[in-house]
């Protein structure tokens, strides 16, 4: 008998283990029963499905990559990617709620929090009973996050930070279960260069206002708000990690997030591929299935190629991360390729569905509107190309 081909890329094993396969099955069933039947309505009504997010918490999804000591599932980034991918096949909004809840919400507290901060905030975040937002982007500072204008000044008399400024597009920042947002702010200026730190602001703090939700092109069931801080006071102890390390800390957790977004894109591609396989076989025009035309069949074939390529790149990056190896370049490669492929696939899937592809009740139409942000959030495609160019030693600026 021929031995099973070894599924490895650059020496990392890409085979999912038994628990990851079992998790994929459970999340697939959960998505089919609890998410898919409602996704169109949530999209139309811009509903954040709090109950379903809480149920995802009960499944343990928000705790997957954190150690058992802090209430987590004791697994890794690969396992988190499996869950995100399965949700994204059906609905990107719930998938991004999980991705951001873990990567941007709980992870900074876990990575940089003091004993006290972890004890106070982590249990609910890891259990998915609460969500946290991460406020980096500002109206005038996105890709160039170092241009942050939000200020935090330490009031020595009261031993409090006084925060003033604006944040833009912050995911999970205004849900009924949001417990806090972490924000980057300039805490000092040395030699004209801003010192950026990260500060925890509990939901409901006076002077911290969550703006009404944006009207977005997609991700309607995901929660996104602008935030404003006007003389907002929090205890000095709410500094997260070392003073002046805010930007560096943020960069350190960014790579994980890129892999997780790539996994979301893989799910989108897989979801659209499955929809198109079915539709191209069932839909009849000119007396034959539309998939009998190469023009349509080849589109679907190309989707399968993109699905395989995106999956391999994504799980390679995750496996390197989980093996403790460098993965910055691989994370950027995966995020760039998978998200651009997702946009291509959703556009072509809409084409395969013809007029129905433009109608809201067809899932690929929602996927098409939802996918575009994947090329923008957590580092635009241009930023990924910058990262890759730098990793290649190019003199790019």
């Amino acid at each position, binding site marked *: 008998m021929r031995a099973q081909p070894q599924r490895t890329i650059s020496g990392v094993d890409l085979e999912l283990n*038994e*628990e990851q396969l*079992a*998790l994929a099955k*459970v999340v697939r069933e959960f998505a089919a029963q609890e998410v898919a039947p409602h996704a169109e309505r949530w999209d139309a009504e811009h509903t954040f499905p709090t109950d379903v997010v809480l149920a995802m918490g009960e*499944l343990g*999804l928000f*705790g997957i990559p954190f150690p058992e000591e802090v209430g987590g*599932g004791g*697994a890794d980034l690969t396992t988190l990617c499996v869950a995100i991918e399965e949700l994204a096949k059906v609905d990107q909004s719930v998938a991004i709620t999980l991705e951001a809840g873990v990567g941007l919400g709980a992870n900074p507290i876990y990575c940089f929090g003091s004993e006290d901060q972890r004890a106070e905030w982590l249990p609910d975040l890891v259990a998915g009973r609460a969500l946290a937002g991460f406020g980096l982007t500002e109206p005038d500072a996105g890709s160039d996050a170092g241009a942050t204008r939000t200020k935090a000044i330490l009031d020595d008399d009261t031993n409090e930070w006084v925060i003033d400024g604006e944040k833009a597009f912050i995911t999970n920042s205004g849900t009924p279960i949001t417990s806090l947002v972490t924000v980057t702010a300039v805490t000092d200026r040395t030699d004209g260069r801003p010192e950026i730190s990260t500060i925890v602001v509990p939901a409901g703090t006076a002077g911290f206002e969550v703006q009404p939700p944006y009207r977005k092109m997609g991700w309607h069931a995901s929660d996104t708000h602008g935030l404003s801080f006007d003389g907002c006071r929090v205890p000095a102890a709410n500094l997260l990690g070392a003073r002046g390390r805010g930007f560096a800390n943020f960069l350190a957790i960014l790579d994980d997030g890129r892999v997780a977004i790539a996994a979301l894109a893989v799910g989108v591609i897989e979801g659209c591929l499955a929809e198109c396989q079915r539709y191209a076989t069932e839909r009849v025009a000119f007396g034959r299935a539309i998939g009998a035309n190469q023009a349509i069949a080849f589109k679907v074939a190309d989707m399968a190629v993109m699905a395989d390529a995106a999956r391999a790149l994504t799980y390679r990056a995750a496996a390197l991360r989980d093996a403790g190896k460098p993965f910055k370049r691989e994370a950027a490669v995966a995020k760039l390729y998978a998200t651009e492929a997702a946009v291509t696939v959703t556009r072509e899937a809409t084409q395969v569905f013809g007029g129905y592809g433009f109608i809201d009740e067809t899932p690929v139409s929602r996927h098409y509107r939802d996918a575009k942000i994947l090329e923008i959030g957590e580092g635009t495609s241009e930023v990924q190309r910058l990262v890759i160019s730098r990793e290649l030693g190019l003199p790019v600026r």
Partner: protein
Amino acid sequence: MNIVVCAKQIPDPAEPGELDPETKTLKRDGKLILDESDMYGVEMALQLADNAGGGEVTLVSMAPDNKVDGIRTGLAMGAAKAVLVSDPALAGTDALGTAKVLAAAVGKVEGADLVLTATESSDGYTGTVPEQLAELLGLPSVTFAKHIEIADGKVKVQRQTDAGYDEVECPLPCVVSVTAGVVEPRYPSFKGIMAAKSKPLDQLALADTGLEADQVGWAGGGQEIVGVEDAPEREAGEIIEDDGTGAEKIVAYLENLKLV
């Protein structure tokens, strides 16, 4: 409150099934999953143990090739341990043989207060194992439970009937078969999945059950599958064009079938 739940592992109904032309039985050499029918029993058992303030839920299963994937799902849902009987000599075992094996497996579980099964499996669906199991264990049998409560050493069951339901009381221990209406099964949590791999799993061969090879398998079968045929094609419907008398024609058609 210690509860034993029969957990049949079956080929995934979502995958196309295949019959072995030789034995005329379902091929089960691929991956097996927990029969959805048995998830209701697992969930009911977990809730009953919880309500009773404690106790263990144990799964028993008979399956080929020491397959455990389906059992792991039940353990991930929260069952404490499992007994699996697997042996090449069990190939071809019929429903009564299955009941004998399951009875032996239940006998390995100490202090069982209640045995739950589904009313019928999703693949074999003879719907006969629960009653045979009860007989072999010498226990009372209550069937088609759509609601179960336990109080004062008795089980109170609402037993689904065509017209409604019967209220049945029965002393413990006993065997109860549950319908899909009895409870909503939970999704296994990720922690449950991780915990399942280290839960005790007692793997038995035929010799451990005290049964002889001629009581089970092809040899022990009291029934034989003599032939397999495709289900008849559904006949094409009758199209009635409405020329103003369409409604009367449809009524006449239905009257002819004695449907109205």
